[in-house]
């Protein structure tokens, strides 16, 4: 089921066409990345999805409903804006408790989410006194507090240090695994998205150039990396490293990205299954992919620009 369906969206700011006939589908349970350079139309698309902008043409539905001025959807959707602002003179804990009361959830949840994002020491700080990174964490806590079914995040890792970004992306994966929460993440930092996204929509000049599951896009545009989604990546990685034909192996919260010597891909499939059993872990899926999402993005954009 698609939680977000956007069809033929057009949005202009005077002469500037920010979104130009955009189609987007975000499947339930997926972590979808909306990737593109600055000025591609990501933020405009997200604002239309969130009901903050009306498109000049086209149609968008979230959970099958129009997002404009729709309070029902707010219970189901959490939002992290590119630049988040909150009533600045209130204290961190006080405001998060207020948000609990807004959504009708126990105030104990406030402590829980602030702990998840690492703001336990900032309870009594006024929101205006938070650093940019802390404010971003606060925005994330604010987005997840009511356990929404869909989280839309625009440049969520902006202003965070590398450790913060890593923690946050792991949090995204964990929430997706545990709560089956759907994510739409917009970013121009492709290595980060490649770690967490199942699907991507590559957007440039207001259009989606390509969209779909990462594996399908890799298959279509490039085939060099094998992606193994596994329950315990570290354990399987430790076994795979012993194989002679493994050229490169990268582990993250979701799985392992493996580059093999040419022609050894089939061997890897067999060996991975055996070694997973040995490591007592379960393989959730194996996909082939390109060397990186950045390369995929470049291949897609180059390909589409050639058509034009």
């Amino acid at each position, binding site marked *: 089921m698609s939680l977000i369906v956007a069809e033929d969206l057009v949005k202009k700011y005077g002469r500037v066409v920010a979104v130009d006939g955009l189609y987007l589908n975000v499947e339930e349970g997926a972590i979808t990345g909306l990737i593109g350079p600055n000025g591609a139309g990501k933020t405009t698309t997200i604002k239309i999805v969130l009901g*903050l902008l009306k498109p000049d043409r086209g149609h968008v539905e979230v959970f099958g409903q129009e997002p404009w001025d729709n309070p029902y959807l707010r219970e189901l959707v959490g939002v992290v804006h590119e630049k988040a602002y909150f009533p600045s003179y209130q204290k961190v804990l006080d405001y998060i408790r207020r948000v609990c009361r*807004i*959504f009708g959830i126990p105030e104990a949840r406030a402590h829980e989410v602030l702990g998840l994002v690492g703001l336990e020491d900032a309870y009594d700080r006024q929101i205006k006194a938070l650093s940019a990174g802390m404010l971003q964490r606060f925005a994330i806590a604010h987005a997840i507090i009511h356990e929404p079914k869909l989280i839309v995040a625009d440049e969520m890792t902006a202003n965070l240090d590398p450790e913060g970004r890593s923690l946050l992306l792991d949090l995204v994966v964990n929430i997706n695994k545990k709560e089956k929460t759907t994510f739409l993440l917009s970013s121009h930092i492709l290595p980060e998205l490649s770690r967490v996204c199942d699907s991507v929509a590559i957007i440039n000049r207001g259009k989606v150039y390509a969209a779909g599951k990462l594996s399908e896009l890799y298959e279509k545009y490039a085939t060099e990396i094998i992606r193994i989604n596994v329950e315990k990546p570290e354990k399987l990685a430790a076994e795979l490293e012993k194989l002679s034909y493994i050229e490169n192996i990268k582990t993250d919260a979701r799985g392992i990205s493996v580059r093999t010597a040419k022609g050894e891909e089939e061997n890897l499939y067999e060996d991975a299954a055996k070694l997973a059993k040995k490591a007592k872990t379960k393989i959730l899926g194996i996909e082939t992919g390109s060397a990186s999402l950045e390369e995929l993005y470049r291949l897609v954009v180059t390909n589409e620009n050639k058509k034009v």
Partner: protein
Amino acid sequence: MEKTEHKGKPFLEIFASTLQEDYRFPILELFTFLYTLGTFIFVSFQTYGGVTNEQVAYTMVTSLMGFPIFIFIILIFKNIAYGLGNDLEKGTIQTFFSYPLKRRSILTAKLLSAIVVALLIFLGIQISALYLLAPDIISNYIGTVLLTYSANIGYSLFLAAVLLLMTLKVKRGGLALVFGIILYFAIGVVNGILTVIAFVTGSAWPIQIIAVINPALALQQHYFSTGLAGSWTPSFNEVLWYVGGAFALVAVMFSISYVYFCRRLSL
């Protein structure tokens, strides 16, 4: 995690949040002090003219109101332009739009804090001062008192409604405040020009035009029909029409703001 049995209270919480921002220390204390100071300074130095007790009541109210109503205008300008305007500029309104609440309810919460609370403080201090000064006159002529306040507040609300429209359009707190100040003085200049025309021509129509947005002039002419438009003495019913008309105009302008905020405002 289980949700509580009761649904959330988004309207009350956003109203409470806005109150906390608009009247944080020392804003509430400062403006209350200015209202009180302005009221009792005028008490000390004014003598009350009028032939009838009704005219005395009218004069007492208008003399007490002079400085405090200016403070009231400053406070609502601050709350609308600097409060709501900054929320639009910085994006706090985007955050409110992520809560389970209709846009009109968000705007209502903001305006209740910006205008209604300021008005309640203003009226509370004013009417308390009046009861301290002359309880018999005020009790017997409470209708005159309320009509006088309504006529004067109508103009303040008109300014607030125009400022709100400007703020929603420009979405910049500082710029909206500048526009509001220009508007205030521009209307003053227009008032002055129309008053001069009334004086020169000896006819009442310029004052009648001003009275549409500032019905206090009609009330003044009703009680003391001298001066620049001495020929115009509106009846009590006419004054009520002017006051009602001014409030109707204010209601229309606020309605336009609501429609814009709910249907057109993009962030």
